[in-house]
């Protein structure tokens, strides 16, 4: 009973009305301390003080908004600042204000401290995030706060995480029964940090003896470790699947445009990669325009970039078709060479316009970061969106090809050009439009690629051989071929990569395709019917 009252009083004290001002000495040590130890001690002191002003200061420090000017410590907000100790406004910002630099060690402690403070936030999402961060980095200093929060927590998911955090810290403290209880609690964790914590219990000292003398504890640890590893293995498998799907979706969208132009016109467009590159650069230009003219709407620049990329690449494609490619019909090998020449010129043109260096395409904030699917599996947002985008593009093209007049004509010309011409399909115009469409899709692929990797003049060169492989494997004339080939190659590539490394995986995939083509030259999904080869 007395304990309960004491705990309640402590809890009430922790949420007492605002104190006057922070301890100036502690704040000074935090911002201007000489060594990391000083700064860490200051952080711990602030945490334990329970002062309401401590939380905004620590959060500001983490966000990089704390600066010092001489001996004063300031929390900066844009152009103005306020003194961290007294709270008075300081405006304008002193010219000699300089950032407080934190190294990784101090920042780690600060992270844990801020997470601990967030554990008592009224919002569940904040508490969940904070609990996850602490589970990633359980520190003894946070234990009192964690226990305090555990006492008030009602949400089961957050509570479960907090119990794991507490157990992680209690692993080495207390008596045997408490330690075994802590170890058993940890079995439910799917966090790789738990593995790191349990391993030392099963390690051997250099002289061969067990580091942990008690056999019962070792057995419990072994059992928990097996359970944790089981959870982790699931995360690995799902991660592999996701990676394969992500790579496959990229291959698919990169090869789609090529499949359209090749299936229709028998033109292998060696400039396909460069059209992707143009789409990526179009995205870059749109990003810059948004930054200059509509900074408030920057988050949505992609919505404008997608149609622009399509249009730019499509228009360039149409120009190419009208000027160069149409004269080379029936001569696929010459088209190959001519389009290669075009690709060289496009690369140099972009290099002259934008420079040889890479350009910076920033992800909008909703595409940064990832969703924590499991404790050890983070699915990046940009890859999720690209998978969705690729699926949308495929669906759109499918609809276009099957439900519109243009699509009908395109399919007709693909199957039998002469006959289609006889029944009145304007084959020349269809060629131009279809080529433009294929190039436009390449532009969309480039827009997607700009969110994942580099944007530079040589962007296309890295994807051209892969696109060919997908087209050759999948067969032409049908969308399904490209889809299955793309996704399939992505999954196979990632699977092999987990065994043998990236390069061998790629080589094996190439060799397998070369061999496959011997057996089935028309690819996986070929149009049925007799085709007389030119």
């Amino acid at each position, binding site marked *: 009973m007395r304990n309960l009252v004491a705990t309640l009083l402590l809890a009430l004290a922790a949420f007492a009305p605002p104190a006057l001002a922070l301890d100036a000495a502690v704040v000074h040590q935090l911002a201007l301390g000489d060594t990391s130890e000083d700064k860490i001690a200051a952080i711990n002191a602030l945490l334990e003080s329970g002062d309401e002003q401590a939380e905004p200061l620590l959060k500001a420090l983490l966000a990089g908004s704390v600066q010092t000017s001489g001996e004063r410590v300031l929390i900066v907000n844009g152009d103005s600042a306020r003194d961290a100790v007294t709270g008075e406004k300081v405006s304008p910002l002193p010219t000699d204000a300089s950032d407080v630099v934190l190294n*990784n060690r101090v920042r780690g402690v600060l*992270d844990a401290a801020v997470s601990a403070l967030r554990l008592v936030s009224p919002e569940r999402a904040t508490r969940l995030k904070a609990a996850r961060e602490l589970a990633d980095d359980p520190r003894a200093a946070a234990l009192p706060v964690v226990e305090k929060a555990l006492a008030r927590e009602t949400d089961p998911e957050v509570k479960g995480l907090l119990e794991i955090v507490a157990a992680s810290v209690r692993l080495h403290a207390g008596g045997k029964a408490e330690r075994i209880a802590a170890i058993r609690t940890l079995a439910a964790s799917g966090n790789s940090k738990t593995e790191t914590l349990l391993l030392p219990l099963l390690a051997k000292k250099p002289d061969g003896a067990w580091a942990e003398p008690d056999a019962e504890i070792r057995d419990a640890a072994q059992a928990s470790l097996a359970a944790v590893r089981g959870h982790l293995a699931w995360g690995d498998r799902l991660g592999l699947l996701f990676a394969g799907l992500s790579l496959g979706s990229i291959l698919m969208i990169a090869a789609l445009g090529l499949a359209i132009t090749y299936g229709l016109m028998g033109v292998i467009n060696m400039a396909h990669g460069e059209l992707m590159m143009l789409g990526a650069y179009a995205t870059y230009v749109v990003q810059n325009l948004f930054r200059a003219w509509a900074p408030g709407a920057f988050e949505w620049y992609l919505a404008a970039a997608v149609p622009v990329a399509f249009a730019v690449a499509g228009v360039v494609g149409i120009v190419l078709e009208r000027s160069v490619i149409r004269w080379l019909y029936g001569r696929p090998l010459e088209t190959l060479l001519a389009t290669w020449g075009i690709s060289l010129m496009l690369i140099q043109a972009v290099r002259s316009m934008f420079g040889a260096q890479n350009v910076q395409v920033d992800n909008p904030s909703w595409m940064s970061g990832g969703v924590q699917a499991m404790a050890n599996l983070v699915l990046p947002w940009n890859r999720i969106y690209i998978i969705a985008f690729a699926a949308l593009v495929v669906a759109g093209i499918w609809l276009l090809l099957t439900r519109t007049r243009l699509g009908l004509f395109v399919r007709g010309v693909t199957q039998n050009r002469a006959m289609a011409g006889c029944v009145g399909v304007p084959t020349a115009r269809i060629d131009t439009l279809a080529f433009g469409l294929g190039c436009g899709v390449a532009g969309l692929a480039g827009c997607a690629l700009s969110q994942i990797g580099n944007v530079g003049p040589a962007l296309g060169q*890295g994807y051209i051989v892969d696109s060919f492989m997908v087209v050759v494997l999948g067969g032409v004339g049908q969308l399904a071929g490209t889809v299955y080939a793309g996704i399939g190659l992505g999954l196979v590539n990632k699977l092999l990569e987990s065994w043998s490394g*990236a390069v061998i995986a790629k080589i094996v995939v190439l060799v397998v395709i070369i061999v496959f083509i011997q057996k089935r030259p028309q690819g996986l999904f070929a149009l049925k019917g007799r085709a007389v080869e030119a």
Partner: protein
Amino acid sequence: MKRRTFVKGLTLGAATAATGLAAPALLAKSKTVKVGVLHSLSGTMAISETVLKDVALMTFEEINKKGGVMGHMIEPVVVDPASNWPLFAEKARQLLTVDKVACTFGCWTSVSRKSVLPVFEELNGLLFYPVQYEGEELSYNVFYTGAAPNQQAIPAVEYLMSEDGGGAKRFFLLGTDYVYPRTTNKILRYFLHAKGVTDADIEEVYTPFGHSDYQTIVANIKKFAAGGKTAVVSTINGDSNVPFYKELGNQGLKATDIPVVAFSVGEEELRGVDTKPLVGHLAAWNYFMSIKNPANEAWKKEWAAYAKKKNLPSAAKPLTNDPMEATYIGIHMWKQAVEKAKTFDVDKVIAAVGGQKFKAPDGFTIEMDERNHHLHKPVFIGQIRADGQFDVVWKTKGPIRAEPWSPYLPEDKGKQDVPEKMTKKS
């Protein structure tokens, strides 16, 4: 007939244009000295090397404004080996035999340097090489103004092992598959053994140039980190760093958890990356743009003005980095050596370069070692800031001497710290 005339006319026109362009070079007979610039202006390395060509031209202009070298105006001869290593050797030979340059500033990748090395040694030329590299080389005809492993890699790993750096116990060595990462990691492995880290706690992974899919590798880093506090030592080159860092950021690998220190990532390489999720990751260099001192401010201003004047693509956001500083230092040291030797003769200039001092933008007076053709350089460990610049979290008290032959490698035992001069052409 029309076609034939067209082609003939085209050829004639091209030939005239070419001669016309070459004419000014032929006509200039005033006191000039030709200096070669051997950097890739196209291909995969253009990204890093173009800016070195520009900073070299800027330095030549700066020197010419002050009266040139020993009264001779510097006439730059810029060639583009296009990231093609055999072409590097051919262009080097051309610079030395056809243009007869007094000195060359160039190369970035160790491949390019190794392919021009036999040419410079055979023809007794002079090359200043400005990029951090793996050591294990000491040529009489080359001056190395970039860092050797003991001026970059070793101090960085020592910092990672220290408490402030995170107290790492396990090391994931990730690099691009070529001589620089391979040799550096070999040296680091021996160094870690000497510090008591076993092979079980070291993992070495290589990806090819231009590799862009790091999902599996980042997942493997996480798995490896389960075994103990891990740090990643990245010798990934150029291009591939962007997708690597993006994947790191997106998969939530925090620097407080698993710090990544990179040796080939500077301000220029971070230009294409969203640096907000990367705050706290590290790089080790002998210079950072964010270093505050008057020499650096002046040099950055000079570069920004030059970029604006020449309308360079990077003029909107001019950045300076370590290899640019090394190029700048190298050119000035050559000038000083020529003026000390009072001649452009290669052997005499080589003898005069040793011992040269120069007040560099990194804030120290940099000295060229008397004997081993390397600079004494300070080491800075920088931490990525949200705006793409670096905060210095650790630095040496002053410049340290280079050890091109690593003391950790058994095969380097007994190697002299002086170049073996080629006494005969073999």
